[in-house]
């Protein structure tokens, strides 16, 4: 609980004060803050999950001056997360595996999980931001490249904490 709260604050700070200024070639923009939604415990009730996704989205929006944009993308992300988990994770395993982290779920599962969710989130986010189908090609380029960047950062952070947790 406290860890999640801390993660919320830290991720928003990183996103707003560091990653906001990083854009590669005007194409690739990382949105690492979605890691917060990815790493929420399995047993989070759906209503809390959606509320938190909505909340972090609005928080990011407050800094990006785009009310509703990130919130909408995050809510979609939360929905995809629910579907993905219900498809791939056995319900009995919940007791042993409280959080969908890299160290607990293994690299293959976590990579797929992060990649799929990030693609959904970014695709929705960028298209909603552009709000036009005429620039779909450029938008798709941005979606793919940004997703690669974001997934890369997610994996790096996962690996960072992977070691620490193993030591415990």
């Amino acid at each position, binding site marked *: 609980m406290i860890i999640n709260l801390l993660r919320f604050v830290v991720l928003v700070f990183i996103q707003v004060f560091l990653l906001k200024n990083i854009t590669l070639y005007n194409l690739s923009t990382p949105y690492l803050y979605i890691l917060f939604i990815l790493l929420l415990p399995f047993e989070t009730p*759906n*209503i809390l999950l959606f509320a938190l996704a*909505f909340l972090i989205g*609005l928080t990011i929006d407050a800094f990006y001056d785009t009310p509703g944009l990130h*919130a*909408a993308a995050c*809510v979609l992300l939360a929905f995809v997360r629910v579907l993905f988990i219900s498809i791939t994770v056995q319900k009995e395993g919940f007791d042993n595996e409280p959080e969908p982290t890299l160290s607990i779920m293994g690299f293959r599962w976590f990579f797929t999980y992060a990649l799929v969710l990030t693609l959904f989130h970014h695709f929705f986010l960028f298209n909603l931001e552009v*709000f036009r189908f005429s620039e779909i090609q450029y938008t798709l380029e941005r979606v793919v490249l940004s997703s690669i960047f974001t997934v890369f950062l997610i994996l790096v952070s996962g690996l960072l904490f992977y070691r620490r947790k193993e030591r415990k």
Partner: protein
Amino acid sequence: MRNLLIFITKYNAFFLFLIFEISSLLIYIKYNSFQKATFLNSSNQVIGSLYAQRTQLVDYLSLSEQNDSLARENAALRNQLKSSFYVDTLAKRKVTDTIYKQQYEYTEAKVINNSVNHSYNYLTINRGSKEGIEVGMGVICSSGVVGKVINVRDHLANVQSLLNKDTRFSVMLAKNKEIGYIRWGDDQDPHKGLLMDVNNNAQPKLGEAVVTSGYSLFPEGIMVGRVTDLHPKGGGISLNMEVTFSVDFDKLQYVDVVDNKLAKEQEGLEAQQKKDD
């Protein structure tokens, strides 16, 4: 109801997703001017095109009504046209002079029917007995003699034009005052007439003006035409010549009716003389 609740709780993720997604999209569209404008524009385009198609269909169905109303409107507008009004303001040119008593009074009139291609041509003018037109009055226009009134109604009159086989007017050559009479030519050319029965001593020249003599309905000196041929076919004992009318009967629009105040007196006098003879 129970089943509905079960259904909702079973798929609560989806319903939660819907609720949160819709609310965030509402926020998004409401607070971002570009997206707001685009969204409203596109929906307006969709709605607008739908409305346009519907209107097209409805318009097509109501075409006959439209036609009716347009026809009615046309008629109403036509009724307001100046040309559909009978002009009853009358401008009679009249000179009050204490030394000269006016002999001729003019009444302007508009030609409302005209023909030039029959053997007996008539005009109709928009003045009648109510305006003082009487049978036998002469009709002239700005360029010359037109004809004489032969039939009068309240507001209309018939004019036997110069282009009529029965029309004869007393005329003269402008220079040497030789008297003759003018009639329409035999070949029914609306521009040509024949000046008949001129004294053989007259020496007419080509291009000489032919004017009214003052012996008939018209004042003296009203233009009739110009001599264009001194030897027309069908010449008789006396001198005949071809005259080109100065009036273009094709294009007559406004004429003046001449009221000779002394005509009756003259007629009466001449009739009495005949009786006396």
